[in-house]
């Protein structure tokens, strides 16, 4: 058995350092550690890279501190729309999904598309129908919305109203 390695990311951004207070930095590190461990543990016991990356990403999708799954950014309309993909370096097969509003773990659905679907990319209603057909439980849209993201969205809406005061529907 050979070398095994896992590398993860939780987003890159250019920002004012003061926008990440120490307590949030600590929570982010804890979330990264948990995700890393979820993937590493699979590799350590001889599991596949595909299972490892899926597990690591699912861990971050479940953590509202990261912009994926629960905690995803709001659209202009105040919804959370998510997307994900997986790709297997051995077979060059892949699965991708987008326009999801009800799927708890988009990366898991992407994996199911890769393994159980004749297509490689499903969007919106079709992706949700496929999720149901595969037996996935759908989440209420409120599951994905966090107070922090809601506040950021409200700030954007208010800025837009200041810039375009006559454009109300």
């Amino acid at each position: 058995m050979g070398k095994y390695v896992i590398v993860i990311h939780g987003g890159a951004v250019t920002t004012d350092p003061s926008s990440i207070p120490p307590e949030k930095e600590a929570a982010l590190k804890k979330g990264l550690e948990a995700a890393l461990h979820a993937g590493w543990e699979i590799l350590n016991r001889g599991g596949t890279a595909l299972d490892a990356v899926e597990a690591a990403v699912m861990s971050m999708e479940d953590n509202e501190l990261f912009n994926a799954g629960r905690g995803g950014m709001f659209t202009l309309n105040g919804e959370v729309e998510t997307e994900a993909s997986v790709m297997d370096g051995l077979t060059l097969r892949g699965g991708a999904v987008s326009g999801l509003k009800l799927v708890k773990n988009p990366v898991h659905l992407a994996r199911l598309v890769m393994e159980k679907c004749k297509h490689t990319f499903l969007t919106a209603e079709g992706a949700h129908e496929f999720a149901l057909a595969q037996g996935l439980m759908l989440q209420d849209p409120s599951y994905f919305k966090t107070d922090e993201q809601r506040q950021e969205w409200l700030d954007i809406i208010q800025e837009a109203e200041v810039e375009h005061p006559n454009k109300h529907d």
Partner: protein
Amino acid sequence: TVGAVALDQHGNLAVATSTGGIEGKLRGRVGDSCIYGGGSYANNEVCAASCTGDGEIIMLAACAHEVYALRKYKKLSIAKAAQGAVAVHADKLQGDRGIIAIDPEGNFAIESNTNVMRCAYRVGDDEPFVAIWKED
């Protein structure tokens, strides 16, 4: 956006990327995370790469595939390939870019043009490494 690349004990590579997109996006907007060659790409013979940052820029620069191309055709190291992908067309396509990538030998790169790059890695039984800031 979140993502992962891995090399398993059987020598196989894989990638996964997932995102909620950008704040205030229009309904139906598609980002790079679900685009092969944009936010994700994996090939056992060359590398696996996952991207994060400004999705429109990453898609137009085909960043994940750029890592692959620089490895495959220019024979660059994974570190140089990731640096090249972060910089490709940077004069015309300006925005945040972050990339994690790994090659079939387990060499890996964490590269970005941002000051924040939330990331972590672990090689075999070695101690895990976790960072929030690029300088870490």
